[in-house]
């Protein structure tokens, strides 16, 4: 029997095809990126080996790169500290109503998460459209002059508007994660807290939240990963503008390579981006793991 579960040819046949696809479409390309990041290739024609010049330039004098990372950081903060508490509170409400209704509302709140980003972006760019968007029409109801704000075009509102679209789409996920976490809380735990005289605030902060720590940390890790991966919504709405105010790293590397014809430089951004993404995820995961063990 042991030999059966240790059958090398079978293991190879099961594992290799999937691994090879991943190596082909994910690992080898990153290798290519490393190679091209050390050149000044424009995408066509001849190119020169430039060593680490691209990296030095990105890290020392590319303010757009740093702006894009700052925006990623802002998005992480907004999702972790604004989206999550709201989603958690709503999940806690939904966990207390009749299952039938709870399911109905969860389904509705989750709809944005199943729509294509193209639809979502087109939807919100139209809502925020300065001339016929419903947002301005709505605000005009409360003012004497018609409101004509270009939400995605004005420096003061562009980043906030983009983040709003991203959060609107991601909210359903956070809600569902918290809801399924709350469903795993044993009823005795809550009852015990009640018997000990804890009010709802105490029950949540002292009993339920600590119990859900593993799920909350998983949600934060997901927030970090998905904030890093944001691209299409920005690409299709502001393109990173006005200026580079709404620039995100994934959009920036794409534009550098395919629009500005700095293919080598774009690959340098790409490699730094992988390092940041994998590094940050590992750091956040590690952070939660040790904290969880202490607690």
């Amino acid at each position, binding site marked *: *029997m042991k030999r*059966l579960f240790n*059958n090398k040819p*079978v*293991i190879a046949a*099961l*594992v290799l*095809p*999937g691994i090879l*696809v*991943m190596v*082909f*479409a*994910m690992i080898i*390309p990153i290798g*290519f*990126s490393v190679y091209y990041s050390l050149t000044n290739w424009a995408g066509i024609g001849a190119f020169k080996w430039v060593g680490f010049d691209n990296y030095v330039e990105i890290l020392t004098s590319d303010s757009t790169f740093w702006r894009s990372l700052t925006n990623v950081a802002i998005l992480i903060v907004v999702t972790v500290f604004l989206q999550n508490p709201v989603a958690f509170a709503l999940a806690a409400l939904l966990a207390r*109503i009749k299952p039938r209704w709870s399911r109905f*509302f969860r389904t*509705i*709140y*989750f*709809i944005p998460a*199943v*729509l*294509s*980003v*193209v*639809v979502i972006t*087109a*939807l*919100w760019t*139209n*809502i925020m459209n300065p*001339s*016929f968007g*419903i947002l301005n*029409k709505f605000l*005009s*109801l409360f003012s004497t002059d*018609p409101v004509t704000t270009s939400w995605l075009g004005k420096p003061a509102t562009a980043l906030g508007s983009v983040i709003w679209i991203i959060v609107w789409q991601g909210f359903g996920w956070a809600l569902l*994660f918290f809801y*399924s*976490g709350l469903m795993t809380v044993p009823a005795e735990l809550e009852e015990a807290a009640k018997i000990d005289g804890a009010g709802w605030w105490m029950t949540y902060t002292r009993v339920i939240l600590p119990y859900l720590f593993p*799920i909350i940390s*998983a949600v934060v890790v997901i927030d970090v*990963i998905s904030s*890093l*991966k944001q691209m*299409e919504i920005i*690409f*299709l709405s502001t393109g990173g503008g006005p200026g580079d105010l709404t620039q995100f790293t994934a959009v920036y*590397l*794409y534009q550098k*390579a395919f629009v500005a014809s700095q293919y080598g430089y774009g*690959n340098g951004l790409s*490699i730094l981006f992988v390092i940041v*993404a*994998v590094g940050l*995820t590992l750091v956040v995961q590690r952070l939660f793991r040790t904290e969880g063990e202490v607690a």
Partner: protein
Amino acid sequence: MSGPWISVKNTKKAFLGVFLAALAFFQLFPLLWVFNYSLQKTGDLFGPAFFTLPAVPQWNNYVRAFVDGKILQSSINSVIIVVSAVALTTVLAFCIAYACTRMSWKLRKWVLGFVSLGMVIPIHVTLLPNFIWFGLFGLIDTHLSLIIPYVAFQISFSTLVIAAQLQSVPLAMEESAFMDGASYRSILPRIIAPMVSPAIVTAMISTFLSDWNEFIMANTYLASDDKRTLPFSIIRFQGQYASDYAVQFACMVLVAVPALIIFFLFSKWIMAGVSAGAVKG
């Protein structure tokens, strides 16, 4: 419990109900707005009124969106690509999950770790190099240029979901089958797969939705119109009919509806899958 208590409870309940309904309305309103606009004449959109229903519903907008947006061709392309990608992803992920959870070999932890790496690496870092790398094989502007990376990037999640459920299936299942002289080739699809079918369905639906909605790879690797996938129809429209907003809105509805139908049909499974993913972390 005396009377007033119950009424306080009821007021609270009513308040909660109104709050949840208002939120649901807020969530759905943008979609209703798009649907409403898709039936208007473009000229009517620019009026000052906050919300008007179309005087005469312009169903013709949908005909134009369907024909000029090449919705039929794009849908066929999307179906071909997504069905192949979902089938491949699920089979390959199931195989890896089985080998890594049920069989004993030294590297299995490493392989599972490598597979989960796919959840962390942003697909965007492969956009630039794959354009060159796929080009070497003549894959650019073919459906394979999407199927391969879709599979590569979705294997991770599917493997983790299926592996999580495989761990709860007793080993005795295979042992007795092996006693009867069955082989892996027959045991995996006939005995093991049905036992983890909830996880498989969850993996398939989540793969379907993300592949069906994927845009940036489709926009990068496909160049010819007759190969493009559905989300691109909206972009094509924004270029072609820059000022004909109502038809653009109709196009958005046409693209959104299939995903919504799948979601409503399978929402139970999707929710269950998300829960599984969340609880397993």
